[in-house]
């Protein structure tokens, strides 16, 4: 109601302030839709002193009503499916979804099992995918940074290019694997 009466310049400022507020205080809620809880303990680890996401304003909230970002893990088992949808619906707009871990992206190692739906994006519109099994806590923070970066620029997070062919990183295992890449 207030927005309509303001002319466009005021609306621009208002939108900018709202966007700034959303970027600086992304409250998160964590939902495990059948994950092995490897990703979940990495998500919880981001709250602890070593990574401390509170410096970005990220707070883990108890109720979906208070959260903006749904951090979801697991290949969405049949039983957890409607609980996940209910949680997503309870969240007020504007809301975002971050899918964490290979299970959340594509069912990972459980592909083909009879009781899972597969990736989370078959149920919810996912904004950021964080591959990894489980991703490092820094990887999850990088995922949130990608989401916030997209919010800042206003459009969907754009793909980044990796060094496709290089053999830069090599697996040093000090065992017979080592002499493979002499």
């Amino acid at each position, binding site marked *: 109601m207030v927005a309509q009466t303001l002319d466009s310049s005021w609306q621009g400022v208002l939108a900018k302030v709202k966007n700034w507020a959303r970027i600086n205080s992304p409250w998160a809620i964590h939902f495990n839709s059948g994950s092995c809880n490897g990703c979940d303990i990495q998500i919880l680890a981001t709250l602890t002193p070593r990574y401390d996401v509170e410096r970005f304003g990220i707070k883990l909230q108890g109720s979906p009503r208070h959260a903006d970002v749904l951090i979801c893990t697991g290949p969405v*088992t*049949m*039983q957890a*499916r409607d609980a996940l949808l209910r949680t997503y619906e309870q969240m007020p707009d504007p809301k975002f979804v971050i899918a964490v871990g290979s299970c959340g992206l594509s069912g990972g190692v459980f*592909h*083909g099992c*009879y*009781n899972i739906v597969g990736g989370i994006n078959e149920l919810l519109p996912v904004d950021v995918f964080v591959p990894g099994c489980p991703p490092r806590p820094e990887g999850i923070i990088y995922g949130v940074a990608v989401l916030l970066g997209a919010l800042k620029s206003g459009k969907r997070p754009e793909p980044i290019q990796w060094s496709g062919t290089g053999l830069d990183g090599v697996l040093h295992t000090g065992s017979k694997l080592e002499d493979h890449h002499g």
Partner: protein
Amino acid sequence: MASTIGALGAVEAVLEPLAVSFNRPQPERLDAVIRPDDLLTAVRTMVNESWGFLSAIVGLDHPAPAPVEGEAEVEGSIEVLYTFCKGAAIAILRTTLPYSQAVLPTISGLLPAAMLYEWELREMFGVEVIGLPVTGHLILADDWPDGLYPLRKSFVGFNGEEKSQ
């Protein structure tokens, strides 16, 4: 190692009258084949002897082999293994139930913890456990179609083919 051999010897002696046959596939393990209707008495003797604790109830599905024209149609069967563990010794009571007559008495009266394993057996293999007091779905989803037992070989996933190599 001596105590395990001793323990296995003791349990073999106790189960002598009931067991159809004994088998020792591994040094620390004794398999005793039991007829379904002797099962309750066998478990009662094990509990009275207080021989170890019931560690797990494992279901095995043996589907009917491809019918050879000569012989009669052989029916598939479900084998149920009651695994008792005492220290390093493992004693397994094996009973085989044909598909048509897959019925077992509950032993949760003797060992309440067994109720949990039997319930999974019923849901995953369709073995009817008489006297199991609880109904409803366990770990399968609420909207799981009835009569469909996932761990039977006949079940090959919803979309018909198991998506794997």
